[in-house]
């Protein structure tokens, strides 16, 4: 009998190799149909009228002019008269018309009267936010901070922060909905195929529409980016289903780009004043911070700083600023990039004050990272080699006399990444074909490919012998794809399902090979006797022995095949033009562990992508909120900037694999590598120009402003 455990390195045909993603051809040829691409017969287009006010009471809604316009088929009130809207861009009325242009024009014709109310949309000044807009969260104390600072021989203080940014998924949020009698089909761009049917049931019940969960069919074959923002059915999902019901026709309603940027993506901000104390030899002894940030009208939780490095004496106080902006959504590694920026920048400033190489400073304090100290040491050694850190590094600000300054910076991070609860179904057909089905989804991370690899490896088949069915809630339920939980969820459940199916097949084949099932294995397209590989039959012949009925195997996420907790380090090299303030990426090194890597190629792509996203939020991204109007000033892609292909420099990725890593089993990877770029790049800029640029993104104006403080009290 085959057992569940991952095969050892010398007995793997596919796992840990560099397989190409199995949905590559359908995507790169433009044939993949995303939810936005679904066109149904008789389909209408939905558009919404949204609030221009950051906070207001709706006094009157008049849809009559819109309803009288040609082609308008249904109107749904999303926020009724008398209720308040809490951010600009909040959806108030939805309608559906027979062309996209007509729907857009009709949405503009909806008359909504508002009574404007007081609001706050920026978190720049917590002192002036006042009690109404701030919420003091619990103060965290560890050790004895007062005593810690008394022991300190050197004190470093600084300000650090990063603004609210938007997810900016290229496929905007939205869906196509279609009713057939009491059956609802939803083509949704979602990270949660198995989970959102229930939200449609509840959301529609509140609108007086009854539908049973077993009649809600959710489909998301391909989805154009989520990054944590696409877990819910959302108000527009419910409204779309209402419009379909009313009009008796399918409706497609996807957010416009400005809506996407304003309401459907928000990573909370974090700003902090930090004071840290150390001994002259670099030993950290005390940390004190006052921090604040906003995630919209609700608190986005308390960041835990210092980050990863557990300074023995800590006092950390955090205030949530409650603002009238589109509400927070989980953004790839929620809160971690913010915590890493504040913490690792403060550490680097201390190293500069001590005239220490920050790499030596980190290694000096590495035991404060706890259980993963050895991993971080190994990763720093590898990163240092890939960056050529020791020969390139220079003390802060000493990068020559010209106006082009080069500098190096580093950071470290952690993440959990334990698998979500997923169910997998592997079917072996009598003709030898195989399919694996899960109600999971592929966000572009390579989920389909990983499922195919695990199935094929377990059954001893080539990768293209396996058909993978995901993106549909009619397959066995699988967890939402968030928090780097998918790879372990789908890999461990599929390993068990495929093993169970295989064992049933081995039992049927054993007599023909004159062996017992536990003496057999599947390898190289054959079922063979483990001790005598020459004694074998082909996969096809084996499957022919199963009779008319397919064999199925089921499996659930399994703790003995996975674990959680990774470390990772990154190093960055930048060049700063001190005349223009422009920061250019030269090189970025990411060294990352995630236990057993199923597919090295797509794993590396995750890390490359995370580093590039990191360049975006370090140098370009900011959701600019305007207090006088209460609106976002850059809800588009020309003034909300992302990096383009010439902005990223050289990127080097190294995955920690092999002994010491593989035996941990699978661990998620999507989040961790996006955590460190902010701190590594900010530290590199400080090292280059001799002064800290306190706030991300490090746009030219901010760099020049920081240069202006040199010698006038800027953290040098």
């Amino acid at each position, binding site marked *: 009998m085959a057992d569940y455990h991952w095969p050892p390195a010398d007995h793997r045909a596919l796992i840990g190799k560099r397989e190409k993603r199995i949905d590559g051809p359908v995507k*790169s040829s433009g044939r993949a149909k995303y939810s936005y691409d679904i066109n149904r017969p008789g389909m209408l*287009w939905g558009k919404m009228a949204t609030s221009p006010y950051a906070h207001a009471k709706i006094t009157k809604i008049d849809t009559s002019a819109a309803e009288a316009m040609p082609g308008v088929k249904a109107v749904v009130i999303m926020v009724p008269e008398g209720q308040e809207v809490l951010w600009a861009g909040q959806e108030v009325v939805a309608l559906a018309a027979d062309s996209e242009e007509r729907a857009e024009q009709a949405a503009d014709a909806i008359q909504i009267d508002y009574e404007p109310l007081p609001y706050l949309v920026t978190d720049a000044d917590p002192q002036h936010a006042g009690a109404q807009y701030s919420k003091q969260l619990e103060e965290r104390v560890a050790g004895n901070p007062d005593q810690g600072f008394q022991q300190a021989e050197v004190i470093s203080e600084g300000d650090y922060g990063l603004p609210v940014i938007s997810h900016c998924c*290229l496929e*905007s949020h939205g869906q196509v909905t279609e009713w057939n009698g009491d059956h609802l089909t939803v083509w949704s761009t979602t990270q949660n195929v198995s989970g959102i049917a229930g939200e449609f049931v509840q959301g529609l019940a509140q609108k007086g529409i009854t539908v049973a969960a077993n009649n809600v069919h959710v489909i998301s074959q391909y989805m154009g980016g989520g990054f944590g923002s696409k877990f819910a059915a959302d108000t527009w999902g419910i409204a779309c289903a209402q419009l379909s019901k009313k009009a008796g026709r399918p409706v497609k309603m996807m957010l416009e780009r400005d809506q996407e940027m304003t309401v459907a993506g928000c990573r909370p901000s974090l700003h902090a004043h930090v004071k840290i104390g150390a001994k002259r030899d670099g030993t950290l002894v005390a940390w004190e911070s006052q921090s604040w940030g906003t995630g919209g009208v609700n608190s986005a939780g308390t960041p835990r700083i210092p980050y990863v490095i557990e300074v023995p004496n800590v006092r950390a106080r955090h205030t949530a600023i409650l603002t009238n902006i589109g509400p927070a959504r989980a953004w790839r590694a929620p809160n971690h990039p913010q915590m890493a920026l504040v913490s690792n920048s403060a550490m680097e400033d201390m190293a500069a004050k001590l005239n220490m190489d920050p790499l030596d400073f980190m290694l000096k304090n590495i035991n404060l990272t706890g259980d993963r100290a050895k991993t971080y040491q190994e990763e720093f050694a590898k990163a240092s080699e890939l960056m050529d850190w020791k020969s390139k590094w220079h003390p802060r600000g000493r990068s020559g006399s010209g106006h082009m300054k080069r500098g190096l910076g580093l950071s470290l991070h952690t993440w959990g990444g334990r698998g979500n609860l997923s169910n997998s179904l592997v079917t072996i057909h009598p003709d030898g074909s195989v399919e694996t089905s899960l109600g999971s989804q592929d966000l572009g991370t390579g989920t389909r490919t990983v499922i195919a690899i695990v199935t094929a490896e377990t059954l001893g088949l080539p990768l293209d012998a396996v058909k993978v069915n995901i993106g549909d809630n009619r397959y066995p339920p699988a967890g939402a794809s968030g928090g780097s939980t998918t790879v372990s969820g789908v890999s461990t459940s599929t390993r068990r399902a495929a093993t169970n199916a295989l064992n049933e097949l081995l039992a049927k084949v054993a007599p023909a090979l004159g062996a017992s099932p536990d003496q057999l294995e599947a390898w190289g397209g054959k079922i063979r006797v483990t001790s005598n590989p020459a004694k074998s039959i082909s996969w096809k012949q084996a499957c022919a022995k199963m009779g008319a009925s397919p064999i199925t195997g089921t499996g659930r996420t399994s703790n003995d095949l996975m674990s959680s907790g990774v470390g990772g380090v990154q190093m960055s090299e930048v060049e700063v033009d001190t005349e223009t303030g422009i920061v250019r990426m030269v090189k970025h090194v990411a060294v990352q562990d995630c236990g057993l890597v199923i597919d090295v190629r797509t794993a590396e792509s995750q890390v490359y992508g995370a580093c*590039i*996203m990191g360049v975006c939020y370090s140098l370009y991204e900011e959701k600019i909120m305007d207090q006088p109007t209460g609106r976002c000033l850059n809800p588009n892609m020309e003034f909300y900037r992302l990096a383009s292909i*010439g902005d*990223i420099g050289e990127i080097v990725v190294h995955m920690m694999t092999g002994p010491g890593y593989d035996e941990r089993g699978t661990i998620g990877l999507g989040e961790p590598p996006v955590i460190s770029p902010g701190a590594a790049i900010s530290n590199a800029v400080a090292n280059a120009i001799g002064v800290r640029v306190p706030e991300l993104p490090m746009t030219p104006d901010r760099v020049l402003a920081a240069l202006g403080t040199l010698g006038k009290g800027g953290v040098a």
Partner: protein
Amino acid sequence: MPSNGDKPRAKGADDKKLPDLSRRSFIKGAGIASVAASAGALLADRALEAAPRPQIGGGVVGPGEAPVTLKINGQVRKLNLEPRVTLLDALRNHLDLTGAKKVCDRGTCGACTVHLDGRAVYSCTTLAIDAQGHDITTIEGIEPAEGLHPMSQAFWDYDAQQCGFCTPGFVMACTAYVEHEPNVTYEGLQKSLGGNICRCGTYRGIREAVLQAAKTMKMKGGRA
């Protein structure tokens, strides 16, 4: 923004005194925006100037539907479209050609890139009626019935895609770049392909894919 379409359209707008000229409809009327306007090799202007301006219904059309004839992927397609319909919406909403994606909808991100007479253009800021008389090629038109276009193949080989939503636009922009650039280099491609945006961060793979596809396409000679 480069445009040679201003004159006839401005005249039409004056004659008709179209009401309700929103910012959005203004942008949509502002003419054909070239992908990567900084890259001279890709400018669509010359191609458009060379082509005779089509006569539509005696000069003035709209705001209602008017017959529009588009030559897409070698096929003549006859549609009835309001003049405000963009080429992108005509492709996606009226012809179910969904390879080109709607993302920024205002000529910034390149997800909607198609070829007009072999040059890369943003179809979200090109009106369908203005695309008449030109050869329109979408990603559906470059892919062979079996296998993949060398650029798509290279995107697969170098894992130059994650969610894949920007990919068709990138493939079209990269294809036009390679077809018009006699000397594809690592430095050159980073300047010329700045008109397309990826959110997942696949640029490293794209750089490799373009270099590889340039070799394959040159070996095959001219348009693949």
